[in-house]
């Protein structure tokens, strides 16, 4: 009891220590406005002081805010008002009365930051009701990387396959740790998403605030993630296992930990989306006919694939890897055959957290860093792990690639905003048809 308490306090203090360091530095940079999806406290655009307002947000595909762009408000073709975006990429357009409007982004006014980028659509129609503001968003991207209307279907499929693979590899990095932790300890760790976020945030801290070169910062970020995972296990989960806490109770504890850490990240990091300095707006290159990817994506995809192969190799060939699979299979039997189960679990936590951290760094390079970036993909990671078979490492990778491809390819048929929905529906369906997953062993799970 007391041991668990001191351990818990130590864990919290350790997190605080990491976080307060960056807090002081964060205060120097202007904190971006909290994003609209900030938990339950979010309010609709709201009637700001002085009547109705449409907020127009201009951002690049990577999540960079674009200041100094001109946005016009039109009604029936006539210009009603105009405004320029501020440092957060937001322009407030005064609306005289409720009704139907068109918000137009003046493409010629785009500043140097957005050089060579095009909005997906330059005009967005919206309607304003009494007492309710609206928010419209313009997303800028390199011509061709977005679902280009001009591209032929075949090219689109190829492009989607490429981005799907890119996303699938990110999920796979997160999924291995989750699956192995479940396999070796039985814990369904909802706080795994915070391990993903932690990797990106600590790297951001080392590069943007401590000023280290990105690759060195990423290496430090990985070490920090591994240490964070070790502290998680040592400070919280190991004492709980020793007490014999039930699996359901541990799962609820992990939900509490996830909520606590996520809002601690928000507290320190703020609600905005930021990018690693120097990695914004890279131009895409033609990889295959019709497939555009940034050089950065190619590097991260290659790196992820190499890491996954190394992990797979280690699991199959090394003594520790074999021990891990043995514990995953049957902890009691593994322990009886002389395997140090505690050591295996510790290793799984350290390696799994480092992989989750890497997944966060790669995801941060792709779509920007925010306090809930991990939480936003957590259910997809769960879907991937369930699809592949809970507790299996190879199943997790296979499931991740399938989920990544599915999410991206489904946008050919359904709107992009609903792309994650398809994967969640698949998650529920797979539980109906083959609950043990593709590579899982049939056992009683009901």
């Amino acid at each position, binding site marked *: 009891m007391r041991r668990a308490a001191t351990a*818990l306090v130590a864990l*919290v203090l350790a997190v605080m220590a990491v976080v307060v360091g960056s*807090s*002081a530095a964060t*205060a120097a940079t202007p904190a971006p406005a909290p994003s*609209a*999806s900030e*938990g*339950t*406290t*979010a*309010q*609709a*655009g709201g009637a700001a002081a002085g009547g109705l307002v449409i907020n127009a947000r201009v951002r690049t595909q990577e999540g960079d805010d674009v200041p100094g762009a001109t946005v016009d408000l039109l009604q029936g073709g006539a210009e009603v008002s105009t405004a320029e975006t501020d440092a957060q990429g937001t322009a407030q357009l005064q609306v005289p009365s409720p009704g139907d409007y068109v918000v137009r982004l003046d493409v010629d006014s785009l500043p140097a930051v957005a050089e060579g980028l095009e909005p997906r659509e330059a005009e967005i129609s919206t309607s304003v*009701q*009494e007492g*309710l503001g*609206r*928010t419209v968003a313009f997303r800028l991207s390199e011509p061709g990387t977005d679902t280009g209307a001009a591209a032929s279907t075949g090219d689109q499929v190829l492009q989607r396959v490429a981005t799907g693979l890119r996303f699938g590899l990110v999920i796979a990095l997160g999924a291995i740790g989750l699956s192995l932790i479940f396999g070796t300890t*039985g814990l*369904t760790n909802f706080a795994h998403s915070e391990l993903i976020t932690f990797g990106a945030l600590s790297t951001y801290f080392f590069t943007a605030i401590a000023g280290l070169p990105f690759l060195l910062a990423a290496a430090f970020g990985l070490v920090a993630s591994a240490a964070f995972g070790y502290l998680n296990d040592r400070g919280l989960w190991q004492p709980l296992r020793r007490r014999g*806490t*039930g*699996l*359901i*109770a541990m*799962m*609820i*504890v992990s*939900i*509490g*930990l*996830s*909520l*606590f*850490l*996520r*809002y*601690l990240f*928000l*507290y320190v990091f703020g609600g905005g989306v930021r990018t690693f300095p120097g990695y914004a707006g890279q131009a895409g290159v033609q990889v295959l006919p019709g497939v555009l990817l940034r050089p950065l994506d190619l590097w991260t995809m290659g790196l992820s694939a190499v890491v996954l192969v190394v992990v797979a190799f280690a699991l199959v060939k090394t003594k520790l890897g074999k021990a891990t699979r043995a514990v995953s299979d049957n902890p009691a039997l593994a322990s009886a055959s002389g395997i140090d189960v505690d050591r295996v679990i510790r290793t799984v936590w350290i390696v799994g957290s480092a992989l989750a951290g890497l997944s966060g760094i790669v995801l941060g390079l792709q779509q920007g860093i925010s306090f809930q970036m991990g939480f936003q993909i957590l*259910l997809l990671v*769960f*879907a991937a792990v*369930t699809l592949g078979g809970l507790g299996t490492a190879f199943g997790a990778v296979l499931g991740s690639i399938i989920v990544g491809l599915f999410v991206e390819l489904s946008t050919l048929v359904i*709107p992009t*905003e*609903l792309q*994650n*929905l398809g994967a*969640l*529906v698949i*998650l*529920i*369906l797979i*539980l*109906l048809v083959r609950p043990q997953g593709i590579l899982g062993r049939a056992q*009683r*799970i*009901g």
Partner: protein
Amino acid sequence: MDIGSILSNALAAAIGLDTIIYALAALGLNIQFGYAGLLNFGQAAFVAIGSYGIASMVTIAGLPFGVGIVVGLLASVLFALLLGIPTLRLRADYLAIATIAASEVVRLLARSNSLGAYTGGSNGLTGFAEGFYDLNPFPAGTYGFGPFQNNERTTWIFLVGWVLVALVALATWAIMRSPWGRVLKGIREDEDAVRALGKNVYAYKMQALVLGGLVGTLSGFVFSLGRAAVQPDNYATAFTFFTYTVLLLGGAARVLGPVVGAAIFWVVLSLTDGLLRGAIAAGWVPDGLMTTTQVGQVRFMLVGLALMLLMIYRPQGIFGDRRELALDGR
């Protein structure tokens, strides 16, 4: 710092709208998790269905709000059946993942532009609550005493809300001492034993899911009418986690556990909120340590920490009985 007003706000929170909403949601969850042992992490979806039932029917379809209530209840039963058929045969951890995914599906659909014509998209809907307030028997004025003073609209929704809480609590008490309730508790304790007695475990679980979901839908009605607005992100997973904290605080598998839990939960949150804001306004908090925006975030951190500590040190909550908790993985 005005200690008096902070204390009186905290006292008022004990019977406030949030307390009613979370008490009802937790009463529903109590039937599912507390009595039947179902780890439903999709309670937010049932609340959302209740809220959108009224909001969409009144604002979009232009029907009276009574129709919205009927539609909300029917949709909730339908959702429970859809959710239950694939998931109720699963082990507890799979059930948790599946229900949490289902509740996110509901929220993502509600905030999507594709369905924006029916749900108002990410901005939600307003202007649907007048039909309810037209039924208000209280003439304009202020009612109550001490810290519990409200205008006629608030008094009306509070009255309706607390009557609902009382009725649901009474019904829970009645059915849980009936043979049906005993079977439910038996399923929580040992599913296979109940099955061996010839009971259809699956059907009982489904009934518990539907019943708890309906109570969650009632919470959604109070939510939407009390705020006079619905906004999809209010029904995120955090709502479900808050509801679990409320339930575990008061004590699961106790009739009044959720109600007491909700009252304590919101009094504590109101108190810490008020004290922190007061301290910032009085300049007692050093610059750069905490702003008023961050006070709202501290609330979530506190809830997360409370959920962890409760689960580790006192899973039975204030009134619960540890032996009556379905916490062993089955």
